[in-house]
Protein backbone atom coordinates (compact mmCIF):
# COMPACT_ATOMS: atom_id res chain seq x y z
CA UNK A 1 0.00 0.00 0.00
CA UNK A 2 2.43 2.65 1.17
CA UNK A 3 6.12 3.02 0.65
CA UNK A 4 8.37 2.58 3.63
CA UNK A 5 9.56 5.82 5.21
CA UNK A 6 13.05 7.00 4.51
CA UNK A 7 14.68 8.86 1.68
CA UNK A 8 12.00 9.66 -0.87
CA UNK A 9 12.51 8.03 -4.22
CA UNK A 10 12.53 11.47 -5.77
CA UNK A 11 9.84 13.80 -6.96
CA UNK A 12 7.80 14.96 -3.99
CA UNK A 13 10.64 16.47 -1.99
CA UNK A 14 13.43 17.67 -4.21
CA UNK A 15 15.82 18.84 -1.54
CA UNK A 16 16.04 16.17 1.07
CA UNK A 17 17.13 17.46 4.42
CA UNK A 18 17.04 15.75 7.76
CA UNK A 19 13.48 15.88 9.08
CA UNK A 20 12.59 15.75 12.71
CA UNK A 21 10.65 12.74 13.96
CA UNK A 22 7.62 14.95 14.47
CA UNK A 23 7.62 16.26 10.93
CA UNK A 24 8.19 12.83 9.48
CA UNK A 25 5.34 11.40 11.56
CA UNK A 26 3.00 14.17 10.48
CA UNK A 27 3.93 13.57 6.85
CA UNK A 28 3.09 9.88 7.22
CA UNK A 29 -0.02 10.59 9.25
CA UNK A 30 -1.46 12.97 6.65
CA UNK A 31 -1.56 10.17 4.08
CA UNK A 32 -3.97 8.25 6.29
CA UNK A 33 -7.20 9.94 5.20
CA UNK A 34 -9.42 8.32 7.81
CA UNK A 35 -7.03 9.33 10.58
CA UNK A 36 -7.01 12.94 9.38
CA UNK A 37 -10.80 12.82 9.22
CA UNK A 38 -10.89 11.46 12.76
CA UNK A 39 -8.60 14.22 13.96
CA UNK A 40 -10.79 16.89 12.37
CA UNK A 41 -13.97 15.43 13.86
CA UNK A 42 -12.49 14.98 17.32
CA UNK A 43 -11.17 18.55 17.16
CA UNK A 44 -14.58 19.91 16.15
CA UNK A 45 -16.27 17.89 18.88
CA UNK A 46 -13.88 19.21 21.49
CA UNK A 47 -14.53 22.79 20.39
CA UNK A 48 -18.28 22.13 20.29
CA UNK A 49 -18.50 20.74 23.82
CA UNK A 50 -16.21 23.47 25.13
CA UNK A 51 -17.91 26.55 23.72
CA UNK A 52 -21.18 25.04 22.47
CA UNK A 53 -23.13 25.22 25.74
CA UNK A 54 -22.71 29.02 25.76
CA UNK A 55 -23.74 29.40 22.15
CA UNK A 56 -27.02 27.57 22.07
CA UNK A 57 -30.07 29.34 23.48
CA UNK A 58 -31.22 26.50 25.74
CA UNK A 59 -30.35 25.74 29.34
CA UNK A 60 -29.54 22.02 29.67
CA UNK A 61 -30.92 21.92 33.23
CA UNK A 62 -34.07 24.05 32.87
CA UNK A 63 -37.27 22.05 33.19
CA UNK A 64 -39.98 23.32 30.85
CA UNK A 65 -43.25 21.37 30.63
CA UNK A 66 -44.43 23.05 27.42
CA UNK A 67 -41.56 21.62 25.38
CA UNK A 68 -41.59 18.04 26.70
CA UNK A 69 -40.95 15.09 24.36
CA UNK A 70 -40.57 17.02 21.12
CA UNK A 71 -39.00 15.24 18.16
CA UNK A 72 -36.06 16.78 16.32
CA UNK A 73 -36.95 20.09 14.64
CA UNK A 74 -35.17 23.22 13.52
CA UNK A 75 -35.54 24.70 17.01
CA UNK A 76 -34.54 21.56 18.87
CA UNK A 77 -32.15 19.82 16.49
CA UNK A 78 -31.98 16.68 18.61
CA UNK A 79 -35.43 16.94 20.18
CA UNK A 80 -36.25 17.31 23.86
CA UNK A 81 -36.66 14.94 26.81
CA UNK A 82 -39.68 14.27 29.02
CA UNK A 83 -38.80 17.29 31.17
CA UNK A 84 -38.65 19.57 28.16
CA UNK A 85 -34.87 20.01 28.19
CA UNK A 86 -33.17 20.52 24.84
CA UNK A 87 -31.23 17.36 24.04
CA UNK A 88 -28.50 19.09 22.04
CA UNK A 89 -27.73 21.27 25.05
CA UNK A 90 -27.61 18.22 27.29
CA UNK A 91 -25.39 16.35 24.82
CA UNK A 92 -22.95 19.25 24.73
CA UNK A 93 -22.56 19.57 28.51
CA UNK A 94 -22.57 15.78 28.87
CA UNK A 95 -19.89 15.46 26.20
CA UNK A 96 -17.77 17.94 28.10
CA UNK A 97 -17.82 15.59 31.10
CA UNK A 98 -17.27 12.45 29.03
CA UNK A 99 -14.30 13.91 27.18
CA UNK A 100 -12.80 15.47 30.32
CA UNK A 101 -13.08 12.22 32.29
CA UNK A 102 -11.62 10.17 29.47
CA UNK A 103 -8.73 12.54 28.85
CA UNK A 104 -7.91 12.73 32.55
CA UNK A 105 -8.09 8.94 32.93
CA UNK A 106 -5.76 8.42 29.99
CA UNK A 107 -3.29 10.95 31.38
CA UNK A 108 -3.26 9.33 34.82
CA UNK A 109 -2.89 5.87 33.28
CA UNK A 110 -0.09 7.20 31.09
CA UNK A 111 1.86 8.61 34.04
CA UNK A 112 1.48 5.41 36.06
CA UNK A 113 2.26 3.18 33.10
CA UNK A 114 5.33 5.15 32.04
CA UNK A 115 6.63 5.26 35.62
CA UNK A 116 6.16 1.52 36.23
CA UNK A 117 7.47 0.56 32.79
CA UNK A 118 10.51 2.84 33.06
CA UNK A 119 11.48 1.57 36.51
CA UNK A 120 10.97 -2.07 35.50
CA UNK A 121 12.85 -1.75 32.23
CA UNK A 122 15.71 0.35 33.57
CA UNK A 123 16.24 -1.53 36.83
CA UNK A 124 15.75 -5.01 35.38
CA UNK A 125 16.27 -8.12 37.48
CA UNK A 126 14.19 -8.60 40.59
CA UNK A 127 12.39 -5.24 40.43
CA UNK A 128 11.44 -5.89 36.82
CA UNK A 129 10.17 -9.35 37.68
CA UNK A 130 8.12 -8.11 40.60
CA UNK A 131 6.54 -5.21 38.70
CA UNK A 132 5.69 -7.42 35.73
CA UNK A 133 3.93 -9.90 38.03
CA UNK A 134 1.88 -6.98 39.36
CA UNK A 135 1.03 -6.09 35.76
CA UNK A 136 -0.06 -9.70 35.19
CA UNK A 137 -2.32 -9.54 38.21
CA UNK A 138 -3.96 -6.32 37.02
CA UNK A 139 -4.46 -7.85 33.58
CA UNK A 140 -6.27 -10.77 35.17
CA UNK A 141 -8.61 -8.53 37.17
CA UNK A 142 -12.12 -8.49 35.75
CA UNK A 143 -11.92 -4.91 34.40
CA UNK A 144 -15.47 -3.61 34.13
CA UNK A 145 -16.44 -5.27 37.44
CA UNK A 146 -13.60 -3.51 39.24
CA UNK A 147 -14.56 -0.14 37.77
CA UNK A 148 -18.19 -0.65 38.81
CA UNK A 149 -17.06 -1.74 42.25
CA UNK A 150 -14.71 1.16 42.91
CA UNK A 151 -17.20 3.76 41.74
CA UNK A 152 -20.12 2.18 43.59
CA UNK A 153 -18.16 1.89 46.83
CA UNK A 154 -16.38 5.25 46.83
CA UNK A 155 -19.10 7.29 45.17
CA UNK A 156 -19.38 8.71 41.65
CA UNK A 157 -17.23 11.84 41.75
CA UNK A 158 -15.14 13.06 38.82
CA UNK A 159 -11.86 11.83 40.29
CA UNK A 160 -13.25 8.50 41.48
CA UNK A 161 -14.36 7.71 37.95
CA UNK A 162 -11.04 8.91 36.52
CA UNK A 163 -9.09 6.79 39.02
CA UNK A 164 -11.25 3.71 38.52
CA UNK A 165 -10.73 3.84 34.75
CA UNK A 166 -7.02 4.60 35.11
CA UNK A 167 -6.45 1.71 37.55
CA UNK A 168 -7.53 -0.68 34.79
CA UNK A 169 -5.76 1.03 31.87
CA UNK A 170 -2.08 1.58 32.73
CA UNK A 171 -0.75 -1.93 32.06
CA UNK A 172 -0.39 -1.72 28.27
CA UNK A 173 1.67 1.43 28.58
CA UNK A 174 3.82 -0.14 31.30
CA UNK A 175 4.61 -3.17 29.12
CA UNK A 176 5.38 -1.05 26.07
CA UNK A 177 7.64 1.33 27.97
CA UNK A 178 9.40 -1.54 29.72
CA UNK A 179 10.27 -3.33 26.51
CA UNK A 180 11.50 -0.10 24.91
CA UNK A 181 13.65 0.58 27.97
CA UNK A 182 15.08 -2.94 27.98
CA UNK A 183 16.45 -2.51 24.48
CA UNK A 184 17.30 1.20 24.65
CA UNK A 185 19.36 1.01 27.83
CA UNK A 186 21.90 -1.19 26.02
CA UNK A 187 22.35 1.34 23.20
CA UNK A 188 25.59 3.26 22.69
CA UNK A 189 24.09 6.68 23.28
CA UNK A 190 23.02 5.63 26.76
CA UNK A 191 26.46 4.24 27.47
CA UNK A 192 27.95 7.48 26.20
CA UNK A 193 25.75 9.49 28.54
CA UNK A 194 26.76 7.26 31.44
CA UNK A 195 30.44 7.63 30.60
CA UNK A 196 30.25 11.40 30.82
CA UNK A 197 28.71 11.02 34.26
CA UNK A 198 25.00 11.59 33.70
CA UNK A 199 22.84 10.49 36.62
CA UNK A 200 20.33 7.66 36.31
CA UNK A 201 17.45 10.12 36.49
CA UNK A 202 18.94 12.21 33.70
CA UNK A 203 19.61 9.17 31.52
CA UNK A 204 16.06 7.92 31.98
CA UNK A 205 14.25 11.21 31.51
CA UNK A 206 16.46 12.93 28.97
CA UNK A 207 17.89 10.11 26.89
CA UNK A 208 15.74 6.99 27.03
CA UNK A 209 12.20 8.22 27.63
CA UNK A 210 11.88 10.46 24.56
CA UNK A 211 12.91 7.50 22.40
CA UNK A 212 10.42 5.19 24.08
CA UNK A 213 7.33 7.35 23.62
CA UNK A 214 6.13 6.45 20.12
CA UNK A 215 4.24 3.27 20.99
CA UNK A 216 2.91 4.98 24.09
CA UNK A 217 1.28 7.74 22.06
CA UNK A 218 -0.57 5.15 19.98
CA UNK A 219 -1.66 3.28 23.10
CA UNK A 220 -2.87 6.53 24.65
CA UNK A 221 -4.99 7.43 21.63
CA UNK A 222 -6.64 4.03 21.62
CA UNK A 223 -6.93 4.41 25.40
CA UNK A 224 -9.12 7.49 24.92
CA UNK A 225 -11.59 5.40 22.91
CA UNK A 226 -11.56 2.74 25.59
CA UNK A 227 -12.02 5.25 28.42
CA UNK A 228 -15.02 6.80 26.67
CA UNK A 229 -16.62 3.37 26.32
CA UNK A 230 -15.97 2.49 29.98
CA UNK A 231 -17.32 5.82 31.26
CA UNK A 232 -20.39 5.46 29.05
CA UNK A 233 -21.02 1.91 30.24
CA UNK A 234 -20.72 3.00 33.84
CA UNK A 235 -23.16 5.86 33.29
CA UNK A 236 -25.48 3.61 31.36
CA UNK A 237 -25.61 1.27 34.36
CA UNK A 238 -26.66 4.29 36.42
CA UNK A 239 -23.45 4.21 38.45
CA UNK A 240 -21.68 7.19 36.85
CA UNK A 241 -22.43 10.87 37.32
CA UNK A 242 -25.76 11.40 39.04
CA UNK A 243 -28.68 13.51 37.68
CA UNK A 244 -29.11 16.24 36.66
CA UNK A 245 -25.54 15.74 35.41
CA UNK A 246 -25.61 13.32 32.51
CA UNK A 247 -22.87 12.11 30.22
CA UNK A 248 -23.70 10.42 26.93
CA UNK A 249 -24.05 7.04 28.62
CA UNK A 250 -26.27 8.62 31.27
CA UNK A 251 -28.52 10.17 28.62
CA UNK A 252 -28.93 6.73 27.06
CA UNK A 253 -29.74 5.24 30.43
CA UNK A 254 -32.44 7.87 31.02
CA UNK A 255 -33.76 7.33 27.52
CA UNK A 256 -34.37 3.60 27.79
CA UNK A 257 -38.07 3.64 28.64
CA UNK A 258 -38.77 6.60 26.32
CA UNK A 259 -37.30 4.67 23.42
CA UNK A 260 -38.69 1.24 24.16
CA UNK A 261 -42.12 2.11 25.53
CA UNK A 262 -43.09 5.39 23.90
CA UNK A 263 -40.88 5.18 20.82
CA UNK A 264 -39.03 8.49 21.22
CA UNK A 265 -36.16 7.28 19.03
CA UNK A 266 -34.25 10.59 19.11
CA UNK A 267 -33.56 10.13 22.80
CA UNK A 268 -31.61 6.97 22.07
CA UNK A 269 -30.14 7.72 18.67
CA UNK A 270 -28.21 10.94 19.28
CA UNK A 271 -26.30 10.28 22.52
CA UNK A 272 -25.19 6.89 21.18
CA UNK A 273 -24.23 8.41 17.88
CA UNK A 274 -21.95 10.86 19.71
CA UNK A 275 -20.17 8.01 21.51
CA UNK A 276 -19.90 6.08 18.28
CA UNK A 277 -18.44 8.96 16.26
CA UNK A 278 -15.99 9.91 19.01
CA UNK A 279 -14.73 6.38 19.57
CA UNK A 280 -14.47 5.77 15.83
CA UNK A 281 -12.45 8.98 15.37
CA UNK A 282 -10.09 8.09 18.21
CA UNK A 283 -9.58 4.61 16.74
CA UNK A 284 -8.81 6.03 13.30
CA UNK A 285 -6.32 8.50 14.77
CA UNK A 286 -4.69 5.67 16.72
CA UNK A 287 -4.38 3.56 13.59
CA UNK A 288 -2.97 6.46 11.60
CA UNK A 289 -0.42 7.22 14.31
CA UNK A 290 0.62 3.58 14.53
CA UNK A 291 1.24 3.44 10.81
CA UNK A 292 3.09 6.74 10.90
CA UNK A 293 5.26 5.95 13.92
CA UNK A 294 6.03 2.31 13.35
CA UNK A 295 7.71 1.61 10.03
CA UNK A 296 7.10 -2.13 10.46
CA UNK A 297 3.35 -1.92 10.95
CA UNK A 298 0.97 -3.24 8.32
CA UNK A 299 0.13 0.13 6.83
CA UNK A 300 3.69 0.77 5.77
CA UNK A 301 4.30 -2.61 4.28
CA UNK A 302 4.40 -3.02 0.57
CA UNK A 303 1.55 -4.97 -0.96
Amino acid sequence: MRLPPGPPSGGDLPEETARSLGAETWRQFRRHRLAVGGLVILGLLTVAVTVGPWLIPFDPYRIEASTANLGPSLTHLMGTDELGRDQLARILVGGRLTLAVSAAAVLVALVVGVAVGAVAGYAGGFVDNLLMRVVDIFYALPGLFIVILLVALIGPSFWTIVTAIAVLSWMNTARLVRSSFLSLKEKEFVEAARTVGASDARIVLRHILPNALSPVIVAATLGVANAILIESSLSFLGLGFQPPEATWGGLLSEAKSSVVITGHWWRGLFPGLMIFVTVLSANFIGDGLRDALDPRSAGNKKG
Partner: protein
Amino acid sequence: MVGPYIIRRLLQAIPLLFGISIIIFLMLQMAPGGPLASGEAQASVTPEQIEKLRGHYGLDDPMPVQYLNWLGGVMTGDWGTSYDTGQPVLEAITERLPTTLVLTGLAFAISLLIAIPVGVVAATRQYSAFDYASTGLSFAGIATPSFWFGLMLLYVFSFQLDLLPSSGLTDLRVEHTGLAAVWDRTLHLIMPVAVLALIATANLTRYIRSSMLEVLGQDYVRTARGSGLPERRVILQHAGKNASIPVVTIAMLMIPDLFLGAVITETIFSIPGMGALFVHSAELRDYPVLLGILIIAALLVVITNLATDVIYGFLDPRISYQ
Protein backbone atom coordinates in the same frame (compact mmCIF):
# COMPACT_ATOMS: atom_id res chain seq x y z
CA MET B 1 6.36 -32.69 27.15
CA VAL B 2 2.89 -31.24 27.15
CA GLY B 3 2.02 -32.80 30.51
CA PRO B 4 4.74 -31.18 32.64
CA TYR B 5 4.20 -27.94 30.73
CA ILE B 6 0.55 -27.86 31.77
CA ILE B 7 1.45 -28.66 35.36
CA ARG B 8 4.02 -25.87 35.42
CA ARG B 9 1.50 -23.40 34.02
CA LEU B 10 -1.02 -24.54 36.64
CA LEU B 11 1.51 -23.92 39.39
CA GLN B 12 2.24 -20.47 37.98
CA ALA B 13 -1.46 -19.68 38.10
CA ILE B 14 -1.59 -20.19 41.87
CA PRO B 15 0.44 -17.11 42.92
CA LEU B 16 -1.46 -15.13 40.30
CA LEU B 17 -4.78 -16.10 41.88
CA PHE B 18 -3.40 -15.22 45.32
CA GLY B 19 -2.34 -11.81 44.07
CA ILE B 20 -5.73 -11.20 42.50
CA SER B 21 -7.59 -12.25 45.65
CA ILE B 22 -5.44 -9.94 47.82
CA ILE B 23 -5.99 -6.96 45.52
CA ILE B 24 -9.73 -7.55 45.34
CA PHE B 25 -9.93 -7.99 49.12
CA LEU B 26 -7.96 -4.77 49.71
CA MET B 27 -10.12 -2.82 47.26
CA LEU B 28 -13.22 -3.83 49.16
CA GLN B 29 -11.66 -2.90 52.51
CA MET B 30 -10.46 0.49 51.33
CA ALA B 31 -13.94 1.63 50.42
CA PRO B 32 -15.11 4.28 52.89
CA GLY B 33 -18.21 3.56 54.89
CA GLY B 34 -17.61 -0.12 55.26
CA PRO B 35 -20.10 -2.89 54.71
CA LEU B 36 -22.59 -1.69 57.30
CA ALA B 37 -22.64 1.96 56.23
CA SER B 38 -26.06 1.70 54.67
CA GLY B 39 -27.52 0.12 57.83
CA GLU B 40 -25.88 2.66 60.12
CA ALA B 41 -27.67 5.47 58.38
CA GLN B 42 -31.04 4.11 59.38
CA ALA B 43 -32.37 5.37 62.69
CA SER B 44 -34.15 2.12 63.40
CA VAL B 45 -30.84 0.26 63.72
CA THR B 46 -29.38 0.71 67.20
CA PRO B 47 -25.62 0.92 67.81
CA GLU B 48 -25.89 -2.32 69.79
CA GLN B 49 -27.32 -4.12 66.80
CA ILE B 50 -24.52 -2.76 64.61
CA GLU B 51 -22.01 -3.99 67.19
CA LYS B 52 -23.60 -7.42 67.15
CA LEU B 53 -23.57 -7.55 63.37
CA ARG B 54 -19.91 -6.49 63.29
CA GLY B 55 -19.07 -9.35 65.64
CA HIS B 56 -21.23 -11.75 63.68
CA TYR B 57 -19.50 -11.02 60.38
CA GLY B 58 -16.03 -10.80 61.99
CA LEU B 59 -15.60 -7.17 60.90
CA ASP B 60 -13.59 -6.25 64.01
CA ASP B 61 -10.83 -8.77 63.35
CA PRO B 62 -7.54 -7.45 61.97
CA MET B 63 -7.50 -7.30 58.20
CA PRO B 64 -5.08 -10.20 57.56
CA VAL B 65 -7.23 -12.39 59.83
CA GLN B 66 -10.34 -11.39 57.90
CA TYR B 67 -8.56 -12.16 54.64
CA LEU B 68 -7.34 -15.59 55.78
CA ASN B 69 -10.76 -16.44 57.18
CA TRP B 70 -12.40 -15.49 53.96
CA LEU B 71 -9.81 -17.31 51.82
CA GLY B 72 -10.10 -20.42 53.97
CA GLY B 73 -13.85 -20.27 53.53
CA VAL B 74 -13.55 -19.91 49.76
CA MET B 75 -11.32 -22.99 49.61
CA THR B 76 -13.78 -25.08 51.61
CA GLY B 77 -16.86 -23.97 49.73
CA ASP B 78 -18.08 -21.52 52.38
CA TRP B 79 -18.33 -18.23 50.52
CA GLY B 80 -20.27 -16.45 53.23
CA THR B 81 -23.84 -15.20 53.06
CA SER B 82 -25.31 -12.17 51.36
CA TYR B 83 -25.75 -9.19 53.72
CA ASP B 84 -28.84 -8.34 51.73
CA THR B 85 -30.82 -11.56 51.44
CA GLY B 86 -29.01 -13.90 53.83
CA GLN B 87 -28.68 -16.38 50.99
CA PRO B 88 -25.36 -18.30 50.80
CA VAL B 89 -23.14 -16.56 48.22
CA LEU B 90 -22.25 -19.76 46.41
CA GLU B 91 -25.93 -20.54 46.00
CA ALA B 92 -26.76 -17.04 44.73
CA ILE B 93 -23.94 -17.33 42.20
CA THR B 94 -24.70 -20.85 41.00
CA GLU B 95 -28.32 -19.85 40.47
CA ARG B 96 -27.32 -17.13 38.03
CA LEU B 97 -24.07 -18.39 36.56
CA PRO B 98 -25.68 -20.73 33.97
CA THR B 99 -27.68 -17.86 32.44
CA THR B 100 -24.57 -15.74 31.96
CA LEU B 101 -22.52 -18.68 30.69
CA VAL B 102 -25.19 -19.58 28.13
CA LEU B 103 -25.28 -15.96 26.97
CA THR B 104 -21.47 -15.82 26.78
CA GLY B 105 -21.20 -19.18 25.04
CA LEU B 106 -23.82 -18.38 22.42
CA ALA B 107 -22.29 -14.99 21.71
CA PHE B 108 -18.84 -16.59 21.36
CA ALA B 109 -20.13 -19.27 18.99
CA ILE B 110 -22.04 -16.75 16.87
CA SER B 111 -19.08 -14.41 16.57
CA LEU B 112 -16.82 -17.28 15.45
CA LEU B 113 -19.45 -18.48 12.95
CA ILE B 114 -19.61 -15.02 11.39
CA ALA B 115 -16.02 -13.83 11.77
CA ILE B 116 -14.20 -16.88 10.37
CA PRO B 117 -15.86 -17.02 6.93
CA VAL B 118 -16.05 -13.24 6.59
CA GLY B 119 -12.43 -12.73 7.63
CA VAL B 120 -11.12 -15.49 5.35
CA VAL B 121 -13.11 -14.35 2.33
CA ALA B 122 -12.11 -10.71 2.92
CA ALA B 123 -8.44 -11.73 3.04
CA THR B 124 -8.57 -13.88 -0.09
CA ARG B 125 -10.24 -11.04 -1.98
CA GLN B 126 -8.19 -8.16 -0.62
CA TYR B 127 -9.36 -4.72 -1.84
CA SER B 128 -12.60 -6.15 -3.24
CA ALA B 129 -15.94 -4.57 -2.42
CA PHE B 130 -16.56 -7.37 0.05
CA ASP B 131 -13.25 -6.66 1.78
CA TYR B 132 -13.98 -2.94 2.08
CA ALA B 133 -17.51 -3.58 3.33
CA SER B 134 -16.46 -6.08 5.97
CA THR B 135 -13.51 -3.97 7.13
CA GLY B 136 -15.72 -0.91 7.36
CA LEU B 137 -18.35 -2.82 9.30
CA SER B 138 -15.77 -4.21 11.71
CA PHE B 139 -14.45 -0.73 12.40
CA ALA B 140 -17.99 0.44 13.02
CA GLY B 141 -18.71 -2.58 15.22
CA ILE B 142 -15.70 -1.93 17.43
CA ALA B 143 -16.78 1.68 17.99
CA THR B 144 -20.43 0.84 18.70
CA PRO B 145 -21.34 0.95 22.38
CA SER B 146 -23.21 -2.29 23.04
CA PHE B 147 -25.93 -0.58 25.09
CA TRP B 148 -26.67 1.82 22.23
CA PHE B 149 -26.87 -1.07 19.78
CA GLY B 150 -29.21 -2.85 22.20
CA LEU B 151 -31.42 0.18 22.59
CA MET B 152 -31.70 0.67 18.84
CA LEU B 153 -32.50 -3.03 18.34
CA LEU B 154 -35.20 -2.72 21.00
CA TYR B 155 -36.66 0.27 19.21
CA VAL B 156 -36.79 -1.48 15.85
CA PHE B 157 -37.70 -5.05 16.80
CA SER B 158 -39.76 -4.54 19.94
CA PHE B 159 -41.36 -1.13 19.58
CA GLN B 160 -41.76 -0.69 15.82
CA LEU B 161 -42.08 -4.24 14.52
CA ASP B 162 -43.20 -5.92 17.76
CA LEU B 163 -41.33 -9.07 16.71
CA LEU B 164 -39.08 -9.73 19.69
CA PRO B 165 -39.71 -9.54 23.45
CA SER B 166 -37.97 -6.61 25.13
CA SER B 167 -36.94 -8.18 28.43
CA GLY B 168 -36.40 -11.30 30.48
CA LEU B 169 -35.73 -14.85 29.37
CA THR B 170 -39.25 -16.26 29.18
CA ASP B 171 -42.72 -15.04 28.40
CA LEU B 172 -44.31 -14.50 31.81
CA ARG B 173 -47.85 -14.09 30.47
CA VAL B 174 -48.17 -17.52 28.86
CA GLU B 175 -46.90 -20.87 30.11
CA HIS B 176 -45.13 -22.54 27.19
CA THR B 177 -44.26 -26.22 27.02
CA GLY B 178 -42.17 -28.39 24.70
CA LEU B 179 -41.16 -26.83 21.41
CA ALA B 180 -43.09 -23.66 22.14
CA ALA B 181 -40.93 -23.12 25.22
CA VAL B 182 -37.76 -23.57 23.19
CA TRP B 183 -39.03 -21.12 20.59
CA ASP B 184 -39.99 -18.67 23.32
CA ARG B 185 -36.50 -18.90 24.85
CA THR B 186 -34.91 -18.43 21.42
CA LEU B 187 -36.93 -15.29 20.75
CA HIS B 188 -35.82 -13.88 24.10
CA LEU B 189 -32.17 -14.63 23.42
CA ILE B 190 -31.83 -13.24 19.87
CA MET B 191 -31.25 -9.60 20.76
CA PRO B 192 -29.11 -10.14 23.87
CA VAL B 193 -26.82 -12.53 22.02
CA ALA B 194 -26.59 -10.18 19.03
CA VAL B 195 -25.66 -7.27 21.30
CA LEU B 196 -23.06 -9.27 23.18
CA ALA B 197 -21.56 -10.80 20.03
CA LEU B 198 -21.20 -7.50 18.15
CA ILE B 199 -17.82 -6.29 19.39
CA ALA B 200 -16.27 -9.76 19.53
CA THR B 201 -17.37 -10.42 15.96
CA ALA B 202 -15.95 -7.12 14.74
CA ASN B 203 -12.62 -7.66 16.52
CA LEU B 204 -12.28 -11.27 15.40
CA THR B 205 -13.07 -10.45 11.78
CA ARG B 206 -10.25 -7.93 11.74
CA TYR B 207 -7.76 -10.32 13.33
CA ILE B 208 -8.69 -13.22 11.08
CA ARG B 209 -8.40 -11.06 7.99
CA SER B 210 -4.98 -9.70 8.88
CA SER B 211 -3.72 -13.07 10.07
CA MET B 212 -4.82 -14.68 6.78
CA LEU B 213 -3.24 -11.88 4.75
CA GLU B 214 0.04 -12.39 6.57
CA VAL B 215 0.02 -16.12 5.86
CA LEU B 216 -1.15 -15.83 2.25
CA GLY B 217 1.97 -13.86 1.44
CA GLN B 218 4.27 -16.65 2.65
CA ASP B 219 6.42 -18.78 0.39
CA TYR B 220 4.85 -22.09 1.36
CA VAL B 221 1.46 -20.85 0.21
CA ARG B 222 2.96 -19.95 -3.15
CA THR B 223 4.57 -23.37 -3.27
CA ALA B 224 1.27 -25.06 -2.49
CA ARG B 225 -0.43 -23.05 -5.23
CA GLY B 226 2.41 -23.67 -7.63
CA SER B 227 2.22 -27.40 -7.11
CA GLY B 228 -1.31 -27.26 -8.46
CA LEU B 229 -3.32 -27.79 -5.31
CA PRO B 230 -6.92 -26.65 -5.58
CA GLU B 231 -7.32 -23.12 -4.21
CA ARG B 232 -9.81 -24.36 -1.65
CA ARG B 233 -7.24 -26.70 -0.17
CA VAL B 234 -4.48 -24.10 -0.21
CA ILE B 235 -6.64 -21.67 1.71
CA LEU B 236 -8.25 -24.00 4.18
CA GLN B 237 -5.40 -26.38 4.86
CA HIS B 238 -2.10 -24.67 4.23
CA ALA B 239 -2.96 -21.07 4.97
CA GLY B 240 -5.88 -21.49 7.34
CA LYS B 241 -4.09 -23.81 9.73
CA ASN B 242 -1.20 -21.43 10.22
CA ALA B 243 -3.35 -18.35 10.32
CA SER B 244 -5.43 -19.92 13.06
CA ILE B 245 -2.59 -19.93 15.61
CA PRO B 246 -2.67 -16.21 16.53
CA VAL B 247 -6.44 -16.14 16.05
CA VAL B 248 -7.01 -18.85 18.66
CA THR B 249 -5.18 -16.75 21.24
CA ILE B 250 -7.19 -13.65 20.50
CA ALA B 251 -10.46 -15.58 20.39
CA MET B 252 -9.85 -17.31 23.71
CA LEU B 253 -8.91 -14.05 25.38
CA MET B 254 -12.26 -12.65 24.28
CA ILE B 255 -14.20 -15.07 26.46
CA PRO B 256 -13.61 -13.11 29.70
CA ASP B 257 -14.47 -9.88 27.88
CA LEU B 258 -17.73 -11.41 26.72
CA PHE B 259 -18.45 -12.55 30.26
CA LEU B 260 -17.90 -9.00 31.56
CA GLY B 261 -19.84 -7.53 28.64
CA ALA B 262 -22.80 -9.59 29.79
CA VAL B 263 -23.25 -7.06 32.64
CA ILE B 264 -24.40 -4.50 30.11
CA THR B 265 -26.46 -6.93 28.08
CA GLU B 266 -28.22 -8.30 31.15
CA THR B 267 -29.00 -4.77 32.28
CA ILE B 268 -30.51 -3.69 28.95
CA PHE B 269 -32.69 -6.75 28.61
CA SER B 270 -33.43 -7.29 32.34
CA ILE B 271 -31.94 -10.77 32.36
CA PRO B 272 -31.33 -12.24 35.83
CA GLY B 273 -27.67 -13.26 35.44
CA MET B 274 -24.35 -12.65 37.18
CA GLY B 275 -23.96 -9.14 35.79
CA ALA B 276 -27.31 -8.01 37.11
CA LEU B 277 -26.48 -9.56 40.48
CA PHE B 278 -23.14 -7.75 40.53
CA VAL B 279 -24.59 -4.32 39.78
CA HIS B 280 -27.32 -4.84 42.36
CA SER B 281 -24.82 -5.98 45.01
CA ALA B 282 -22.48 -3.07 44.24
CA GLU B 283 -25.29 -0.61 44.91
CA LEU B 284 -26.02 -2.33 48.25
CA ARG B 285 -22.34 -2.86 49.17
CA ASP B 286 -23.06 -6.53 49.60
CA TYR B 287 -19.38 -7.43 50.11
CA PRO B 288 -19.54 -11.25 50.28
CA VAL B 289 -21.48 -11.47 47.01
CA LEU B 290 -19.16 -8.96 45.30
CA LEU B 291 -16.08 -10.89 46.43
CA GLY B 292 -17.59 -14.14 45.22
CA ILE B 293 -18.46 -12.81 41.76
CA LEU B 294 -15.04 -11.18 41.40
CA ILE B 295 -13.30 -14.43 42.26
CA ILE B 296 -15.43 -16.33 39.73
CA ALA B 297 -14.61 -13.75 37.05
CA ALA B 298 -10.89 -13.81 37.90
CA LEU B 299 -10.89 -17.62 37.84
CA LEU B 300 -12.43 -17.44 34.39
CA VAL B 301 -9.64 -15.14 33.20
CA VAL B 302 -6.91 -17.39 34.62
CA ILE B 303 -8.51 -20.56 33.26
CA THR B 304 -8.96 -19.16 29.76
CA ASN B 305 -5.35 -17.93 29.76
CA LEU B 306 -4.21 -21.39 30.75
CA ALA B 307 -6.40 -23.05 28.14
CA THR B 308 -5.06 -20.64 25.52
CA ASP B 309 -1.48 -21.59 26.34
CA VAL B 310 -2.27 -25.29 26.12
CA ILE B 311 -4.16 -25.02 22.82
CA TYR B 312 -1.39 -22.83 21.45
CA GLY B 313 1.09 -25.55 22.37
CA PHE B 314 -0.88 -28.16 20.46
CA LEU B 315 -1.38 -25.95 17.42
CA ASP B 316 2.17 -24.74 17.12
CA PRO B 317 4.76 -27.48 17.62
CA ARG B 318 7.52 -24.86 17.48
CA ILE B 319 6.59 -23.66 20.96
CA SER B 320 9.10 -24.94 23.43
CA TYR B 321 7.83 -26.27 26.70
CA GLN B 322 10.92 -25.30 28.62
